[in-house]
């Protein structure tokens, strides 16, 4: 009864809908993730990322749609659980168990897997092996959570905002762990609102907003759709209009964001001097000018007119 291609898919989702009262958290979402792929779900807080992931993890029922994980549905729950690893967005493991005791307990739930010491070494917690969980730092706890997700040697790994709130060093460490996992040909789904994380770890990403996928593809492909590889942001006083921006050479995209103009350009050395000259000709001051390499953040702003992170 299964489609022959299903076996090669880590995740297949069709028409997923989840409502909380009047709020539609997930609004008709389709998703295909191939075996061996690392896939990122990006979006601002409240976009429906966690809800989607928890439905995929079999922890939340959906209101409509079909979900197939590793060729099975959640009707087959326990067998499927043997093959996936999960790190929830936030879990406080028992305070007064040690790292090793915690991982050992999680290992006991799986029929097969790695030894607790192997995964503890994998996430770099060897010297905290016998420390109580309550004594660990935020980054160490997060690595412990990933160790618990990896101890069953999963074929598919779910990570919900694995590095939110971590310092840069802990974040890089976790990235190494995920890269290793991916290097073994396993599949991985992660949600994040850090663009750098998605660009670094994911083969493909989907940008989610208001419970829908608004763009999907490799990070390079999505950035390429902006039509340029550089972004110029500026503010002028008195302000200029869109016609002015369009008259500049080499501009492929224009958006307005927080009282600043944002231009996607092919080459900075063509556009920036022209911008400076044109403003001087009008007698306007350049109040503020920044440029950066186009990123997924720019893709999101171009698509929605909003920043991904609430604080941006």
């Amino acid at each position, binding site marked *: 009864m299964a489609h022959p291609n299903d076996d090669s898919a880590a995740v297949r989702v069709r028409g997923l809908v989840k409502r909380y009262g009047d709020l539609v958290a997930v609004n008709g979402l389709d998703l295909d993730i191939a075996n061996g792929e690392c896939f990122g779900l990006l979006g601002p807080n409240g976009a429906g990322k966690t809800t989607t992931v928890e439905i995929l993890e079999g922890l939340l029922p959906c209101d409509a749609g079909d979900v197939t994980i590793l060729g099975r549905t959640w009707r087959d729950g*326990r067998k499927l659980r043997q093959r996936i690893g*999960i790190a929830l967005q936030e*879990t406080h493991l*028992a*305070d007064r168990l040690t790292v090793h005791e915690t991982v050992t307990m999680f290992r006991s*739930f799986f*029929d097969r897997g790695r030894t607790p010491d192997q995964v503890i070494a994998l996430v770099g917690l060897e010297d905290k092996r016998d420390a109580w969980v309550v004594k660990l730092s935020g980054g160490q706890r997060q690595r412990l959570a990933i160790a618990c997700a990896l101890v*069953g040697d999963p074929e598919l790994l779910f990570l919900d905002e694995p590095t939110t709130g971590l310092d840069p060093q802990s974040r890089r460490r976790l990235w190494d762990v995920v890269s290793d996992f991916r290097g073994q040909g396993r599949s991985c789904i992660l949600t994040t609102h850090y663009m750098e994380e998605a660009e670094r770890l994911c083969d493909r990403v989907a940008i989610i907003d208001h419970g829908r996928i608004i763009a999907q593809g490799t990070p390079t492909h999505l950035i390429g759709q902006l039509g340029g590889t550089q972004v110029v942001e500026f503010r002028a006083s008195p302000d200029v209009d869109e016609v002015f921006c369009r008259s500049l050479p080499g501009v492929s995209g224009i958006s307005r964001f927080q009282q600043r103009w944002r231009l996607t350009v092919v080459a900075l050395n063509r556009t920036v001097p022209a911008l400076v000259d044109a403003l001087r000709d009008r007698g306007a001051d350049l109040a503020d000018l920044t440029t950066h390499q186009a990123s997924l953040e720019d893709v999101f702003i171009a698509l929605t007119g909003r920043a991904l992170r609430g604080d941006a």
Partner: protein
Amino acid sequence: MSPLGHLILARLREFYREPAALFWTYGFPTLLALALGLAFRGGDGRATPIAVIEGPFASERAAVLAQDPGLSVRTVSPRDVDSLFLGGGIVLAVGADPALEYRFDDTHPESEAVRRRVDDHLQRAAGRIDPLPTRDRPVTAPGSRYIDFLIPGLIGMNIMSSSMWGIGYTIVEARKRRLLKRLAATPMRHGDFLLSFILARLIFLATEVAILLAFAVLVFDVVVQGSWLWIAALSVAGAMAFAGLAMLAASRTQSTETVSGLMNLIMLPMWVLSGVFFASSHFPDWMQPMIKPLPLTLLNDAMRAVINEGATSAQVALPFAVLSVGAALTRVVAVRVFRWN
């Protein structure tokens, strides 16, 4: 080791690594038994303080009463009497008039007894002849002291509170920390998780009851009249009944504050009504049908009957059965409505 074994191990470690849990489970009931046992120990030879109010008969009456070593007599001026009563300095005052007047708190059984005793002394000294000669032979019957009454009640209360807090609070906290959800995301059998609480509870229960009983036997010479097997069986049935109630209270509750309130609501009436510190027969008759079926009343009455009266199996089989059925029913419902997130 099996997943269930690991879960039980986690329960045990979480417990013995938490000093507060250790204190409330083992230290507190023992201290309570010690304090109450010392305060209400009978036959300690301490004389009962009474007063004779100053007046023409005072010295004569005081001399008569002073011959009783069980009384400590002092002569006081009329205006000091009230303040002595208030401070608990005396339990009875003998009036100064020719006709005997006794002042005492008639709601207090001890005062009533002292009144009769003092009256006998004074009447006999005044020439009353009792038709029959009397002789007192004090008996401290095993099982009749206050500490004997108290210990089974404390065991019952401890079984109740440690089962309720140890299970109810811990489960809700795990839910609040999303640990339940995390466990539900593994292939762990859901039944194993709840079973680990029950089995760990039985291990704690054995030590809890043993420590309190050993303390009672060694320090207060409490004598266990009935079968130790019945003490164990009643302890298990009681613990399971309260474990079921705790799981029910915790099955969907999201906050530890709510579950604490809920459990206190369940436990508080039983602390007062179920005969922990004083017999539930003190409550009026119309309340008895409500008090008798409370799980703690069933447990305390049965435990008291076994420890103090050596009750037979036939006498405690019914409360045992009721507690066991209650344990099974609450558990079935709790498992059915249980939420993992």
